[in-house]
Structures are given as C-alpha cells and as structure tokens.
C-alpha cells in the first residue's frame, strides 16, 4: 500500500483549524512575556478572525482522503463559530479583568475549542468527528472550571466532565457498532449499507445519544442548567452558541448522508424534539436565576432545531427545490446563526449585570434595569423577544423557517406542539422584560454594573443587536447562502 501524503489542498482545507490552534499555542507562549490583558485580547481576536477569514482562501472539496469535506455547509459553520469565538473573546475581556483571571490560557482554550468545532463541522468521517468533539469538549471542561475559586464553577466542570465522558463513550461505542456493520467509518460508505439493519440503527442511535448530550436534547440535558450556571458567563455564551451549532452541523451531516429518511429516524427525531421542547420550556418557567433560565431556554431551542431535523428526515427523498430538504437545512442553519448571536448578546449582558463573582443573577437583580441601564435593558429585551420569536428579530425568521419546513412536510402536529411551546416560552421571556421595566429595584446593586456596560461588552451587544435586526428585517442575503442546493456536497 502506497503511503498517502497530504497535499497542499488538504492543508488549505483545514486552514481555519490550523490558524485557530496555531494562535492558541502562540497565546500560551506569549503569556510569560506579554502581561497586558488588552493586548492579549486583541491578539486572540486577531487569531479568531484570521482563522475565520482563511476560509475564503480554501476551496470546496474533500480533504485528507475523504476524512473531511470542505463545502458551503462547513464554510457557513466556520463563519458562525469563528464569529462566536471572536465575540466571546471580546466579551471576556472585561469579565476576566473583573474576576482577575488569567487571560492567555482562557483565550487559547477558546481557540482550541473553536478548532475542535471546526473539525466537527467539516468531518466526513466518524473518527475525525470524534477528534473534533474531544478537542472542543476537553477545552470546554477546562473553561467551565476556569473560575477556580468558585465552588459552582468547579462543580460545573466536574459535572460536565463526568457526564461528557459518559456521552463520549456512547458516541465511541456507536462508532464501533457502525464500523462493525459497515466496515467503514466514512459517512459516504456507511450510506451504502442497508439502512434497515438493526445493528446499524443501534450504532447510529448511540451516536445520536452522544451528540444529543452535546446539544442538550432531553433526556440527555440534565447537565445543562448546572454547567451553564456554574461556568464563567462568557464561557456559557460560547457553550450555548458554538459547540451546539457545530454538533448540530455534524448531526445534520450524518443524518442527511446516511439513509435516514425512514420512519424510524423520523419518529426518533419527532419524539426527541417534543420531549426537549417541553422539558426546556417547563423547566425555564420556574427559574428565578436568569442565567439558569437562559440555560433551560437553550434546551428548548435545541428542541425547536430538532423539529427541523425531523423535517429533514421526512423530506430527504424529495428533490423539489421548494419543498425538498434544502428548506429544512436552511431552517436549521438560519436558526442556529440567529440563535447563536442572540445568545452571545444575552449572556454578555448577563455577565455584565452579574457583577464580581457573578452574584447578581436573579430576576430581582434585573429589576429596574430599564431606568438604570436603558441600553442594556433595551438590548436584552430585543434578545429575549428574538428568543421568543417576535417579528423583526432574527429569532422570528428562524422560527418561521422551521415552521415552514415542518408544515411543508405536513408535520402539523409537531408544529402545533412547537407553537404551544412558543407560548410557554413567552411567559418566562416576558417575565424578564416585565421585571426590567415594570418593577423597581430593591436591595444592593453590583457597583460595577450599576452605571453602564463596559465598552467591550457594549461592542459585543451592539454587534448582536445589529445582527438580530438585520437578520430579522433583511434575511435575504443569508438565506441566499443557506438555501444553496449544493450546500452539502455529499447529500447530492
């Protein structure tokens, strides 16, 4: 057998990952010499941007002998996670200063995690996906426990690590079973196997469990509230946006490449979606901690996205442009983009309001925000309304396209259940707005947060607000990208 040597083209197709990792390593090396936090922040942001922009240099096609697939689809997700990393680093600056945490490793870990997500988004082979998953997970475990002095942060890290390892084991076991049945871990080759083989189903189901853990789909969601609450808030922003999007990317890629358009997978996603929506929304209702509430809301949103996946598995066989699966892909992609930006913005505000040690996270601490910090309150309201899915926000079009994909597949019941969940969601999102504008604040106020957002956080919030409104008013441009029928080269 001739040893296969990677070509330049292969390298170019993983250029974003290489840049992110490279800048991460550079940051670690620079740390002893560069004590200026802001310089490190700028450097890390530069790294995130270089990685993201290097996608423009790459060209479409398979890399590393089919281990990865660089297509419009992975391009989109690279932009998404690169943007999230960029914003999270910017938002972390003031947070790290306030909490007196070391910046260099923090940023390096974010970049490593981002590289892992990048691998996830373009993986065309299960073991490569596993590597991506582990890269992002292990960095995430450390990030979750980055506030070493805080008990909650440590708890968060340990929980995430233990349950995450457990889920990874499921994922690996699934890969092993799939390999046992098909003799390959390459998605294209798996897709040629008999889809009705029970062992293959079991293998894929175990993979679904493993990935379901990462996207916080019920019943694999129990870690989410605790981990999200304990982790440093910028990290929570990253968790709720980046890894989730990347894992959805992989999930969608797996279940569109293999023959998943069967009743079995359709009902699997149907049930998963419904359970996840209800668990997330009903859990969120009783929360008084805003950070925790947003954690539950991200479970609910995973459920909404799964609705679109149910539509995908239902539609896979249809080749019509208007009704085909592209619509459902577009729905997922658009949704994840809007959702990620909104969540980053919302958690940034939560991080700023939280004050030192993240002590001010309850609803009561948000009371009267409308008069104390009109800009933060208005932005937060916009984010919450977007999560709720009200018009002229990104969330509305996300919800709209998921509704549309599901209705086109005649999944009326699923849509009705999703509509009911939207209404449940309205209650707890609205409650935060009500508290911010209609209640007076009682008790002490975080001294740092009393006046205004820090400039870096304000920048992040402004970007998120602009993106939310842009996607909500003029979705054409992004739609043009996500509605591309050659989005997934492998799914042709």
């Amino acid at each position, binding site marked *: 057998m001739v040893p296969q040597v990677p070509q330049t083209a292969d390298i170019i197709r993983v250029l974003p990952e290489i840049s992110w990792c490279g800048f991460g390593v550079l940051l670690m090396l620079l740390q002893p010499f560069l004590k200026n936090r802001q310089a490190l922040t700028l450097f890390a942001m530069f790294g995130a941007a270089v990685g993201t922009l290097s996608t423009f240099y790459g060209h479409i096609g398979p890399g590393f002998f089919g281990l990865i697939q660089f297509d419009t689809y992975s391009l989109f997700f690279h932009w998404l996670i690169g943007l999230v990393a960029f914003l999270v680093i910017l938002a972390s600056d003031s947070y790290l200063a306030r909490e007196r945490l070391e910046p260099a490793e923090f940023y390096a870990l974010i970049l490593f995690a981002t590289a892992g997500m990048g691998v996830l988004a373009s993986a065309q082979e299960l073991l490569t996906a596993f590597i991506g998953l582990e890269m992002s997970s292990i960095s995430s475990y450390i990030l979750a426990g980055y506030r070493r002095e805080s008990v909650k942060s440590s708890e968060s890290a340990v929980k995430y690590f233990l349950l995450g390892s457990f889920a990874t084991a499921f994922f690996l076991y699934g890969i092993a079973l799939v390999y046992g049945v098909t003799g390959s871990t390459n998605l294209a080759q798996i897709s040629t196997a008999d889809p009705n083989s029970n062992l293959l189903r079991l293998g894929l189901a175990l993979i679904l469990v493993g990935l379901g853990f990462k996207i916080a789909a019920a019943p694999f969601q129990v870690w989410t509230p605790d981990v999200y609450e304990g982790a440093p808030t910028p990290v929570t922003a990253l968790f709720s946006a980046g890894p989730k999007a990347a894992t959805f990317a992989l999930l969608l890629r797996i279940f569109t490449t293999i023959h998943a358009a069967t009743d079995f997978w359709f009902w699997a996603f149907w049930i998963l979606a419904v359970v996840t929506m209800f668990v997330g929304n009903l859990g969120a209702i009783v929360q008084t901690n805003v950070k925790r509430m947003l954690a539950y809301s991200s479970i609910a949103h995973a459920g909404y996205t799964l609705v679109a996946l149910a539509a995908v598995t239902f539609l896979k066989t249809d080749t019509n442009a208007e009704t085909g699966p592209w619509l459902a892909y577009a729905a997922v992609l658009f949704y994840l983009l809007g959702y990620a930006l909104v969540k980053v913005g919302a958690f940034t505000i939560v991080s700023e309001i939280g004050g030192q040690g993240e002590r001010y996270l309850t609803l009561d601490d948000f009371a009267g925000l409308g008069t104390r910090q009109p800009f933060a309150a208005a932005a937060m309201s916009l984010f919450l309304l977007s999560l709720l899915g*009200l018009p002229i926000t990104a969330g509305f079009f996300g919800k709209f396209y998921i509704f549309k994909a599901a209705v086109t597949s005649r999944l009326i019941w699923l849509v009705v259940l999703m509509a009911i969940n939207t209404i449940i969601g309205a209650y707890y999102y609205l409650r935060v707005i*009500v508290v911010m504008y209609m209640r007076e604040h009682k008790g002490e106020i975080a001294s740092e947060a009393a006046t205004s957002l820090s400039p870096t956080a304000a920048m992040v919030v402004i970007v998120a607000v602009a993106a939310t409104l842009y996607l909500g008013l003029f979705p054409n441009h992004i739609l043009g990208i996500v509605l591309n029928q050659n989005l997934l080269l492998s799914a042709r």
Partner: protein
Amino acid sequence: MDLTSHLLSILIFFPAIGALALLCLKGEDELFIRRLTFVVSVAEFLASLAMLLKVPIGAASYSLVEYKPWITAPPINYHLGVDGISMFLVILTAFLTLLSVLASWKGVHHRIKEFHVMLLLLEVGIIGVFLALDLFLFFVFWEVMLIPMAFLIGIWGHDRRIYAAVKFFLYTMFGSAFMLVGILWLYSLSGSLDLVTIQAYLQQNPSVLSQRTEMLLFLSFFLAFAIKVPLFPLHTWLPDAHVEAPTAGSIILAGVLLKMGTYGMIRFCLPLFPEASHRAAKYVAVLAIIGIIYGALVALVQPNLKKLVAYSSVSHLGFVVLGIFTFHAISMQGAVYQMLAHGISTGALFYLVGMLYDRRHTFEISEYGGLATPMPWYAAFFLFVALSSMGLPMLNGFVGEFLILLGTYQVHWGWASWAATGVILSACYLLWAYQRVFFGDVTHQQNRDLPDLDARERCSLIIFAVVTLWMGIGSPYITRRVAAPVDAVIQQTQSRYAEEAARPARAVIQAQDSARRVVSQ
C-alpha cells in the same frame, strides 16, 4: 417623489419617525415631548384623511396599492392597499391616537418620553395591520403591535398592571402562534403569501382545501381574531387589561385594537375560507349572542365604572361579530359601522372615566354620586356619550346596531331577537350607572369641590361629540364608501360556497349524460 403613491407607507411609518425623533430628545422636556407628539399625531390624522380623496367611492378592489418584493424565499412582499373598510379604521386609529395624546396630558406623569414613543409605535403597528395585504406582513404588524401595548399597560397602568399586561400578551400570543401555523399551512397549499393571489387561487381551485383542512385553517385564523375581539368565552383578558391600562391605553385598546379582530374576520376568515365560515357561522353567532347578553349583564352589576365600560365593549363587539357572520350585506355594513361607532363612543367613555380618575383616583361607582352638581359640563358630556353608546337614534351607535339587527333579522329572526335584548340591557347598565354617579345629592365630601372640565378636556370632548353626532346623521357618507368592499366580501364568500353546493349537482348531470350516451350506443 410622488407622495400620494406612497401615502400608505407614509401613514404607517410617519409615527415611527416621530417616535425616533422623540427618542433623541431629553426626557425632561416634558411639554415639548407632548407637543411634538401632538403635532405628529395631528399630521398623521390629516394625512389619513387624504385617503378619503384618493379612494374612489364604489371601488371594491384595493386602492393606493404599494408592492415591493421584500424576502425572496418564501416570496414575501411588502404589499399594502386600502379599501373602504380599512380606510375608516385607519382614520379612526389616527383620530383616537390624537385624542389619546390629549387624554394623557395630565394623567401620565412619569417616563413621559417613553410613553409617547410607545403610543406612536402602537399606531405604527395598528395602521400596518389594517393596510397589509400580505399575510406575512400582516402577521408582522400584528405581533409588533403587541409590545408597545403591553408596555403601555405594564408601565403606566394601575395597581395590577403587570398581571394585566402579561395576561394580555399571553392571550394574544396564544392566538397568533396558531395563526402563524395557519398562514404557513396556507402557503404550503397555495404557494403564495399574498392575500389577493391566495384568494384568486383558492377561488379557481376550490379542491385544494379539503373540508377538514379548510375548517382547521379557518379555526387557526379565527382563534387569533376571536381572542382579540374578544368573543365570549375568550374575553377574560379584556376587563383586566382595560381596568389596569392608562386612559390612553384604554382608548386605543377599546377603540381600535379590538377592531383588529373583527377586521381580520372580514378580511381573512370570510374570503379565504368561505365554506368553513358558513359552517361555523351558527356556532359563532351563538357565541356572539351569548357575548352580547353576558357582557351586558356583567356590566350591569359592575361596581367599577371602568370595568363596566370594558364589559360593555364585550357586548358591543358581540354585535359586530354577529353582523359579520350572518353574511348579509346590510348587517355586515352595520358591523363595519358599529366598529367605527364603538371606537368613537367607547373611546370617549374611557376618556371620560379617565378624567374622573385623574381627579379622584378611583373607579368605584360607590365613591361617586351627585357629580352633576360640581361638574355640570362633565355630566352633560357623559350623558351624551352614554346615549350614543346605548344606541339612541341620531347618534352613531344607533346606525350600526340597527343595520346589524335589520340584516340579521332577514337571515335568522331568532338571533336578531336575542341580540336586541342587548340594546335594552345597554340602556339599563349605562343609565343606571349614570344615575348612581351623577344624580342625587353629593354623597362624598371630597366630590363637592371637584373641578369641572378644563379647556383641553372640553375641546377634545366637543370633537368627540361632533363626530358622534355627524356619524349619527351623516352615516351615508361612510356607508356609501363601505358598501362596495362589503359586497365584494359577501360575494367572495357566497360565490365559492354556491359553487361548492353546485358541484354535486353538476356531477349528477354529468353522470346522467354519460348514462344516456351508454344507452344510445
């Protein structure tokens, strides 16, 4: 640029520009903020009157149409248009917004800038709802309108304002979530989101909608509208929202917001789902009649003056729904007229009740009594408005109710006779309340020195009174413009329904033909 060709866009977005301008001001310039809002709303009202010149009488189709592609997939267009029905509702909206600004001159004391911004944004949403001809655009305005209204109730309302605001928001969300599903379902069946296109498509291909699908679609729209109207038994948000809302909020809420529901029924439910509308008509009519009587009876026993007016709205809107679902040209004209008349009368009633609250900070009827002595002007205006609300001939309320009952009687005399009791009951609760509040001796010492109307209040009430009287006498001015679109709606409802009914007959004839051919061979 030709302004008139963009008149509708101007009508929608001019208040938004005003709101933006307000945002740039400092919150301390209270008087300037009020004046600026007043000027903006006056300009908006005058601009809305320009529609009267531009919309030809007797035109059944939409005028002043604006059409621009907005979103490519699915094809969503910025499609606006106005006909006789929506024209008057827009004018009513602009009129009541103008008077709401006057009404909150003294009643609102804190966060004045935000209050007026919300008021103007609310106007944007409502006018957008009335002018949108794209289902998606309609939905966007429908939802956007929610936020300023919820804020108006929640921030500037009375004691239980937060509860009322959340309840209002959730009720409406509940309906609109299903309406969105309905809109998308309709889109997936017809391939368009444009009202006119869908209507034509459904008329040509009636087989697209199975009976069950049509009914479900009808219900998904109807639920949203019925909550907004509100139709019994979905009315429970209304008393809370009204009682807790500030005066301006109540005026807009009762005056135009409720009409968005009945407007939606006329514009969407009936023409799009004629057969389902016909099949649902008797249930809807029964609910409407229950609403008429129930609303009136509850109003009768209210100890709270504002709640009394709120329940009277339930009763009056029941008439409107009844008028719509009899599918009779006269009663539907009456329904449209009643929408306008109720907007004026109830708007004025809430304004009057708000004035009383500004002076005494209570709505309890038992706290008043003998007010005619210290406030003769106020008492006179109140009587005038109350009489118009209960449907005294020569005043606005009479025309609508009379036409509705006239039309309904020809379709179903039983409905008409039950509904007519509502007219009697409305006289009972209003006159009884009037007697308790105004006649007799002054029972509470604090009431003895209540100041009578000041110039601002007197002016705005005179405007209300003039409009009330004009609408009672000059009703043909409005009905002439409303008649053609109403006839069009009825025709759309009828023709397809008739076709549906005729289809089996045609099938029988075809079967006979083929049988004959077989025999002759």
